[in-house]
């Protein structure tokens, strides 16, 4: 099969322009201005229209989107929303800090809630859609300046609309010897957005918030704050030293709604003289514990310096294949079917990708140590020599050297374009990761869903990334996916395992697991900084 299938075209023509407007159509309204559920909760139709008029005066009419058609791209999401609870009222796109300040003034005046996005491609977590219907998207994409790259210190200062692709092009054009660290959707997302949601990449600079250094934030009252050394007049160390002086503030502007970040600094990894990617292949699902125990010491002592990806077979296969190639029954795919198919692609049930960085001498010294450890765990340690040309090996080689790729988005085609990520944290202990894998499979099985998982291995913990892939065009399946992630969050929570990040539909659910004291503290900060609650209400369960 090549190109557009007839099915794609027919399906598209049948629904026509209403594809992304399903949420509107479902409620029988033509425009957000006509539907009370699309309006901010405390704003009348005329109040909303007045606010929109003022926003247009600030940014120009073409950068305010307040009708159904122009709001369509903001309503697109892969995550389940069976009750239409995440439909934006519209969007406004500023081009400068001053415009952001003016917009916030209007929002305070009208109590207009603004859901801030950078590039709006938070793919497994709701894209640009808000935590509750009726919020206006504050779209920062037009603020897309690379403000400064310091080639001596290896630092960058960028605006929210800058993508990893923009930075990649800049580094290439100026022949600067740095590697970016990109998430799996690098070309179309921004370092600011990904870092503020505490996302990861797969080089030694993979913990993005760890590598972040300095922010500029507009508070709800319009105050402009620079964190860390950025508050010092004529500072030359804003992007060099993270902590500044006094309480460290940057953290409260991540996964939060306490301000609008308009600039962010971060560190760039100097291109290493040598780089060698590896894949360790294990053939049984039950090997998960052995792999984690073998990996832990190397991540703790940094002999393996990058964020390691331990990829489950069903996730890997879904990148480039569709479900019907493997299995034509509605129930979860049996493990032996996945294993056989994966084997034909050169893959095991778990495929662990790490890399060594440095000089040839350093790599030659470390390789035998890690090789012995993984071979003792029952894995086959493979390199370019054995795997060169393999699509998956090449993909991970690219990720671990900061190259642009969107190949993992292929998983969206597994079952009709629906995807939501459940991302509990596991300690880097074999026994508990095996328990998490078993629990995830049990719950997914109940809903006839498949276990598409990857573990991203940090120093002492793993992000267990479980992608629920479902048919979003089928309301029954959408409801099932929604039920499934709620059960997963709840039952993992009963074992003490909570998410590091979650989608817009489950933010309250996860926030409750972090307890009343935590929620109350966040609520008090919110009340102090944003008394009209205009900034992204509901983000991380904070209103």
């Amino acid at each position: 099969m090549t190109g557009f299938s007839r099915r794609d075209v027919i399906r598209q023509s049948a629904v026509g322009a209403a594809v992304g407007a399903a949420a509107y159509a479902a409620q029988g309204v033509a425009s957000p201005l006509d539907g009370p559920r699309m309006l901010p909760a405390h704003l009348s139709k005329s109040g909303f229209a007045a606010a929109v008029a003022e926003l247009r005066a600030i940014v120009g009419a073409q950068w305010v989107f307040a009708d159904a058609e122009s709001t369509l791209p903001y309503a697109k999401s892969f995550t389940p929303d069976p009750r239409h609870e995440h439909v934006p009222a519209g969007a406004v796109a500023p081009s400068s800090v001053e415009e952001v300040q003016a917009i916030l003034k209007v929002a305070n005046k009208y109590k207009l809630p603004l859901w801030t996005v950078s590039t709006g491609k938070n793919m497994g977590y709701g894209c640009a859609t808000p935590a509750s219907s009726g919020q206006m998207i504050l779209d920062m994409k037009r603020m897309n300046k690379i403000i400064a790259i310091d080639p001596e210190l290896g630092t960058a200062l960028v605006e929210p609309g800058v993508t990893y692709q923009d930075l990649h092009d800049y580094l290439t054009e100026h022949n600067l010897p740095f590697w970016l660290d990109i998430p799996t959707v690098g070309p179309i997302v921004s370092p600011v957005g990904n870092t503020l949601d505490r996302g990861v990449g797969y080089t030694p600079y993979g913990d993005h918030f760890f590598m972040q250094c300095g922010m500029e934030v507009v508070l709800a009252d319009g105050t402009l704050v620079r964190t860390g050394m950025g508050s010092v007049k004529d500072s030359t160390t804003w992007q060099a030293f993270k902590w500044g002086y006094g309480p460290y503030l940057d953290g409260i502007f991540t996964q939060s709604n306490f301000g609008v970040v308009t600039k962010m600094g971060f560190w760039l990894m100097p291109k290493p003289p040598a780089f060698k990617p590896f894949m360790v292949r294990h053939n049984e699902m039950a090997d998960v514990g052995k792999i984690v125990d073998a990996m832990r010491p190397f991540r703790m002592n940094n002999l393996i310096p990058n964020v390691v990806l331990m990829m489950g077979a069903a996730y890997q296969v879904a990148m480039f294949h569709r479900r019907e190639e493997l299995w034509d029954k509605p129930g979860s795919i049996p493990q032996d079917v996945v294993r056989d198919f994966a084997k034909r692609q050169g893959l095991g049930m778990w495929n662990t990708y790490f890399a060594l960085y440095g000089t040839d001498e350093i790599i030659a010294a470390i390789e035998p140590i890690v090789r012995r450890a993984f071979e003792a765990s029952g894995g086959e340690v493979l390199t370019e020599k054995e795997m060169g040309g393999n699509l998956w090996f090449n993909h991970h080689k690219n990720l671990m050297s900061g190259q642009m790729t969107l190949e993992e988005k292929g998983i969206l085609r597994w079952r009709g374009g629906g995807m939501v990520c459940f991302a509990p944290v596991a300690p880097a202990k074999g026994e508990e990761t095996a328990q998490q894998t078993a629990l995830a499979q049990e719950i997914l099985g109940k809903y006839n869903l498949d276990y598409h998982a990857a573990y991203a291995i940090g120093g002492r913990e793993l992000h267990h990334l479980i992608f629920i892939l479902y048919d979003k065009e089928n309301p029954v399946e959408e409801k099932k996916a929604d039920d499934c992630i709620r059960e997963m969050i709840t039952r993992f929570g009963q074992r003490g395992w909570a998410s590091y990040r979650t989608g817009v539909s489950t933010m309250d659910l996860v926030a409750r697991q972090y307890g009343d004291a935590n929620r109350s503290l966040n609520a008090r900060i919110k009340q102090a900084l944003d008394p009209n609650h205009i900034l992204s209400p509901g983000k991380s369960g904070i209103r």
Partner: protein
Amino acid sequence: MSAQAVHRARTGAWAVACGWLMVVGAADANASARPAPQTTAVPASIAQFRRPPAPPRAPEAIYVRTCGYCHGAHVAPIIRGRGLPAEMVELYVRTGPRGMPAFRPTEISPAELKALAVWVSQSKADPNERAPLDPIPAATKERAQ
């Protein structure tokens, strides 16, 4: 900055930053109050801060930097050389049907999208592109870095 200085910065920093020394200290326990942060008042007239629109990018550049990462790269259907109606391309870009993301006017401007849709519609097939279920080639196409 000279190329030599860039090289020095690179070779000096990578070992420190990538290796054992990537451990950072805790905040100063004796820290006391700091001066108030810099503030900026909301200006009376905002129009002066409007950025002029960026010049439109060529369709080929947008295709390579956005569409081509999926379409023709084993992930999404091939769209070049098929004579797809330009209106359909525009609709797909703005709505993101099924597994495709939607792209907003702030990402691809209306003028850019119009030109892109015509370009896709009229473009010739690229023999190097691969549809999702095509056989995997012996060596994966490397992207120009």
